[in-house]
């Protein structure tokens, strides 16, 4: 890199930081030595450069000496880079002309040999001179924000986020694939640890969302595709035909009475039946019937047409077609929830073979007052009240070999709740729980679990279940009690499996449409596990609820509110400012090999179809520089960290010229 040195007037300010730097590094000597260094027009040292007089000195010197760039040799840039950038701005200097040479944390504080530390300080400063000589003045990239949010998923997390954003005063679209909002929470009976009725707390939220002037509910809709970037997404949404005009339907239920098609009811987990024209559950929002096209006879060539005949409101229309339309939004909250691990996956528990081996959500419906048995605990096979129920925790969770390695988090608590509620309904019954560990870390959780044991006399057996099979009308559960080391055989009337929480069914497809990332289990990845837990890595996408990982209701609600607050932060800005230190492409050098495209985790790279060369979407680029390192022709360069800058810094740092 023997190109000619660029010309600039650089000012150097070496900070003593009291004795923090000056105690080890000979700051005066450094400042003096650097006076004659090529490119440096001014060099001084000062006791506390970050102090008010120190900053004023910088401002005055920039003006007085007509400096093009400054270097502050002081503490880590994480501390005062912003401070000095602001000071420089006051003097009319572009903030990207400021370099911070870290001679405290990475020099004076870690070395005791004064001579060596001083030499190192000089090397560090020289490298920053080399870089400063080649720094460009940059302006933040400005992007408009469309102040309208899209929420995908109308469960408790999605609705909470929608309500919060709507309360901030912004428009919200909620897309829900099912005929009604409500998600999984509306299916639950009572919630731990307070045992309040889930529907009683969920329905007011649903109604509030449906009535809010800023919220538009798009139920029975699905997201088709998303393009654009933060602040400016274009979303194509598919409206699935309901075959019933929701504005006309007055819920008279005449259609349902005459419909001849009987199918298992999804809301009751298949434990009861519904008609092909149905309302998912009495409190459904929007309150309208939906005709399920898979099961309806009327849509077949030989039409049945019975429901249409009885509908006085003329709300039924068999010719309704799917409609696709486009909406513009600035932020997207993904709150698509979860599904349960299938019982087929664990053949030895017989969930597929035996009607009386059910999953947790089925048991929720059995316990629910609005459920298939009206809240009386009856087993599905013969409707008898079970006298001994076995609950198996961690079914499909915490199994690194065959199933899911993670903990599904809520099963310990809801199993305790199930056992407790069962005992309240069947006081002379026996509830036995097989567990690996009880994880009751939450407000009031451990007390709740203790109550299950002490007040409700639930029997906890520490160990796994190996097999469940039928003998007569009993289910035999083979397990082990790891506290005594003995095999256990339990005769049960019904078995409830606490199936693992897994990613929602349509997640892989949705992720492809949104181009956002998930972990290996299909749960959405957050931008930072500790510090940015509700944002996706891709700007403009936010996460709420179990789409992100197993969590209970309060956590899902808290995360949704946090996501809404983040959306509020975004919308509160007039325009978005994006860091300009991104990668650019030199048209003349780029051959269009497309290696950079595979390097980019943000889909910021693409090939220009006309020119056949790589381009960078400057809003999506986060400036990691991975593509610049991969570019075989040097066409991709990171602004203010170009190859030339790195090479010149290396030369400056490694040169053996004796300056000290």
């Amino acid at each position: 890199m023997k190109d000619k040195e660029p010309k600039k007037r650089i000012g150097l300010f070496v900070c003593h930081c009291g004795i923090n730097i000056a105690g080890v590094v000979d700051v005066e000597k450094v400042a003096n030595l650097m006076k004659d260094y090529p490119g440096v027009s001014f060099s001084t040292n000062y006791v506390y450069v970050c102090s008010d007089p120190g900053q004023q000195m910088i401002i005055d010197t920039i003006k007085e000496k007509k400096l093009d760039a400054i270097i502050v040799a002081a503490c880590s840039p994480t501390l005062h880079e912003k401070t000095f950038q602001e000071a420089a701005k006051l003097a009319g200097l572009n903030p990207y002309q400021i370099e911070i040479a870290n001679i405290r944390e990475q020099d004076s504080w870690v070395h005791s040999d004064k001579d060596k530390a001083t030499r190192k300080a000089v090397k560090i400063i020289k490298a920053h001179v080399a870089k400063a000589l080649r720094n460009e003045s940059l302006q933040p990239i400005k992007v408009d924000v469309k102040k309208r949010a899209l929420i995908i998923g109308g469960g408790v997390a999605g609705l909470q986020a929608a309500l919060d954003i709507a309360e901030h005063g912004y428009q919200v679209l909620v897309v829900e694939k099912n005929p009604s909002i409500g998600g999984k929470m509306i299916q639950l009976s009572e919630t731990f640890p307070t045992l309040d009725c889930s529907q009683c707390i969920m329905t007011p939220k649903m109604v509030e969302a449906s009535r809010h002037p800023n919220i538009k509910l798009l139920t029975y809709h699905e997201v088709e595709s998303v393009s654009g970037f933060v602040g400016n997404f274009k979303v194509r949404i598919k409206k699935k035909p309901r075959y019933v005009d929701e504005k006309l339907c007055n819920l008279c239920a005449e259609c349902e009475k005459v419909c001849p098609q009987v199918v298992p009811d999804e809301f009751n987990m298949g434990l009861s039946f519904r008609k092909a024209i149905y309302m998912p559950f009495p409190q459904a929002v929007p309150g309208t019937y939906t005709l399920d096209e898979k099961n309806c006879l009327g849509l077949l060539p030989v039409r049945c047409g019975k429901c249409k005949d009885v509908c006085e409101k003329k709300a039924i229309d068999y010719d309704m077609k799917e409609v696709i339309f486009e909406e513009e939004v600035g932020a997207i909250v993904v709150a698509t929830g979860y599904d349960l691990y299938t019982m087929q996956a664990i053949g030895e528990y017989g969930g597929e073979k035996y009607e009386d081996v059910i999953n947790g959500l089925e048991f929720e419906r059995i316990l629910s007052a609005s459920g298939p048995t009206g809240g009386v605990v009856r087993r599905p096979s013969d409707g008898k009240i079970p006298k001994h129920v076995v609950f198996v925790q961690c079914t499909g969770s915490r199994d690194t070999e065959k199933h899911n390695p993670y903990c599904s988090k809520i099963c310990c608590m809801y199993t305790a709740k199930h056992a407790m509620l069962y005992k309240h309904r069947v006081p002379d019954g026996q509830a036995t729980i097989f567990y690996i560990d009880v994880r009751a870390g939450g407000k009031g959780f451990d007390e709740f679990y203790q109550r299950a044991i002490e007040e409700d006399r639930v029997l906890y057996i520490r160990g796994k279940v190996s097999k469940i099979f039928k003998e007569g009308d009993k289910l035999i559960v083979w397990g082990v009690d790891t506290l005594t080391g003995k095999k256990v055989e339990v005769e049960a009337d019904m078995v409830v499996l606490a199936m693992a929480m897994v990613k929602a069914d349509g997640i892989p497809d949705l992720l492809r449409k949104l181009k956002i990332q998930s972990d290996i289990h299909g749960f959405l990845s957050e931008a930072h596990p500790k510090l940015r837990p509700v944002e996706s890595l891709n700007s403009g996408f936010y996460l709420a609820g179990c789409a992100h990982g197993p969590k209970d209701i309060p956590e899902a609600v808290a995360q949704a509110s946090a996501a809404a607050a983040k959306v509020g932060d975004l919308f509160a800005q007039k325009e978005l400012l994006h860091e300009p230190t991104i990668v650019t492409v030199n048209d003349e050098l780029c051959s269009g090999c497309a290696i950079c495209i595979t390097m980019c985790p943000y889909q910021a790279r693409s090939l220009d179809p006309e020119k056949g060369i790589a381009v960078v979407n400057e809003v999506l680029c986060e400036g990691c520089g991975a593509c610049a390192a991969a570019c075989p022709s040097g066409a991709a360069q990171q602004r203010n960290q170009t190859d030339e800058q790195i090479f010149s810094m290396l030369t400056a740092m490694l040169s053996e010229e004796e300056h000290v």
Partner: protein
Amino acid sequence: MFEPQIMCFLCKWCTSGAADLAGTSRIHYAPNGVNLRVMCSSRVDPQHILYAFRAGADGVFIGGCHPGDCHYVEGNYKTLRRVTLFSKMLQDLGIDRKRLRLEWISAAEGKKFAETMDEFTEQIRALGPLDLKDKVLKREVAKDE
């Protein structure tokens, strides 16, 4: 005693943070390394490594985030692949691969950073000077003559 020159490329989010933490915790270590902060370890191009050796470095160190913790999703995996491949090439170029080291050091691991610096300095000291700069210069001079 031979004092090796070590060039350290530190990722801004993790290892540079670790170096700062070593500072705030006042953990002393060998002063042979000089640090160049990059946004991500994946910004380090094998050319930069080679250039550093040519410019006089006896050892090159790259510090990134632990696998799974990369600020840019997967930059450190890219670095791992590049460095693994490139260290094989180094061997072919006659540079001991032990002169190039990649470590995952999180921003919470100030002590690990200091220990790694001490250890790597000793390792390079044992290997002796690389003198690539001199060798290259000699060859260039010979060519000119």
